[in-house]
């Protein structure tokens, strides 16, 4: 069998069939191409953010004197400045920074799980999968708090003139955010926040389900029975991708 296979290969070349030009299993290839399509989706969202932001005036004054208004796009570090349990103190970007660290850390424990899978080390796989799972759940909890704070808003609110859902022009103090009006800036600012971080959070939620599945199956010995830990690798690819997207969301939504 092996001698004929070699003969055919040499005649047909790399793409002539009878071999694996991409040298990856079906599952891993499909995960990569799914992730490529997901890169396009997320990039389209972030580019949309850029285009809509550019269609609004920027805040002209000093960053320290910033006041919210729906006339111009807000400065993110003046908006995202709250941390849980400490009320009314200005901690710009500290909480999202923490969330970034948590997600990167859970990505690291995921690589360690994949590495343990290559060594068929069930004990290490289970240990690192559990840490990754914890990281994912912690990140989701942080995002839930972040959303809740964003929706409920600050104590002061902002006095805005805007067109409400009944198509009337009203002038009132607005607290927090919804899809029609928000106290931070123009309506698309909150819409894009919900849309982009929400879609990312949805991916994280799916990831946490997959992580739990992999953790459970590794723990009860499904992969040991199967003879390889490739499932850990595939779910790992997805989990790193979620981290990769967050790195971009962090830059374009919170830093710039």
């Amino acid at each position, binding site marked *: 069998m092996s001698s004929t296979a070699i003969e055919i290969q040499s005649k047909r070349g790399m793409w002539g069939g009878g071999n694996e*030009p*991409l*040298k*990856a*299993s079906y599952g891993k*290839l499909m995960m*990569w191409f799914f*992730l*490529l399509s997901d*890169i*396009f989706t997320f*990039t*389209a969202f972030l*580019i*949309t953010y*850029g*285009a*809509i*932001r*550019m*269609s*609004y*005036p920027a805040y002209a004054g000093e*960053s320290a004197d910033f006041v919210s208004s729906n006339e111009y796009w807000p*400065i993110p*570090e003046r908006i995202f400045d709250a941390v849980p349990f400490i009320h009314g103190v200005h901690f*710009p*970007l500290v909480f999202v*920074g923490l969330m*970034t*660290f948590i997600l*990167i850390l859970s*990505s*690291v424990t*995921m*690589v*360690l799980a994949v*590495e343990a899978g*290559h*060594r*068929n*080390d*069930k004990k*290490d796989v289970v240990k690192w999968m559990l840490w990754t799972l914890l990281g994912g759940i912690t990140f989701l909890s942080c995002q839930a708090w972040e959303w809740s704070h964003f929706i409920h808003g600050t104590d002061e609110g902002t006095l805005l003139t805007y067109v409400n859902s009944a198509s009337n022009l009203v002038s009132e103090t607005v607290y927090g955010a919804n899809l029609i009006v928000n106290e931070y800036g123009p309506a698309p600012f909150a819409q894009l926040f919900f849309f982009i971080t929400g879609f990312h959070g949805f991916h994280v939620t799916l990831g946490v389900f997959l992580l739990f599945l992999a953790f459970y199956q590794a723990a009860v010995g499904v992969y*040991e*029975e199967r*003879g*390889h830990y*490739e499932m850990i690798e595939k779910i*790992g*690819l997805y989990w*790193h*991708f979620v*981290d*990769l997207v967050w*790195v*971009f969301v962090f*830059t374009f939504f919170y*830093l*710039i």
Partner: protein
Amino acid sequence: MEHDNHKELEVIPRDSAKIKKIWMTALILFMVTAVEFLLAFTMDRGLLLYIIFIVLTIVKAKYIMMEFMHLGDEAKPLFYSIIVPLIFLVWLIIALMREGADIFLMRW
């Protein structure tokens, strides 16, 4: 792929050099994020700062894709079939930034 039932998988001992490399990559990612964080409060907002942020983000993306997702270790055709389609995004960025700027001129 082996599909026959291996009840007894041989456990290969840890390679500390490999594990050290993973933690080194993690350290780099943390440091880059810390630098971004620091720059956000020390530099004036403007085009230069935005370019620095984008470059640092691409550096982080490179480390995540190459070291964590092992894209660099895959066969070359697979590597390029993931990286090359991203060229389309360059056009999308140019087109929509231009579009945004034009909407701005129409509105104000």
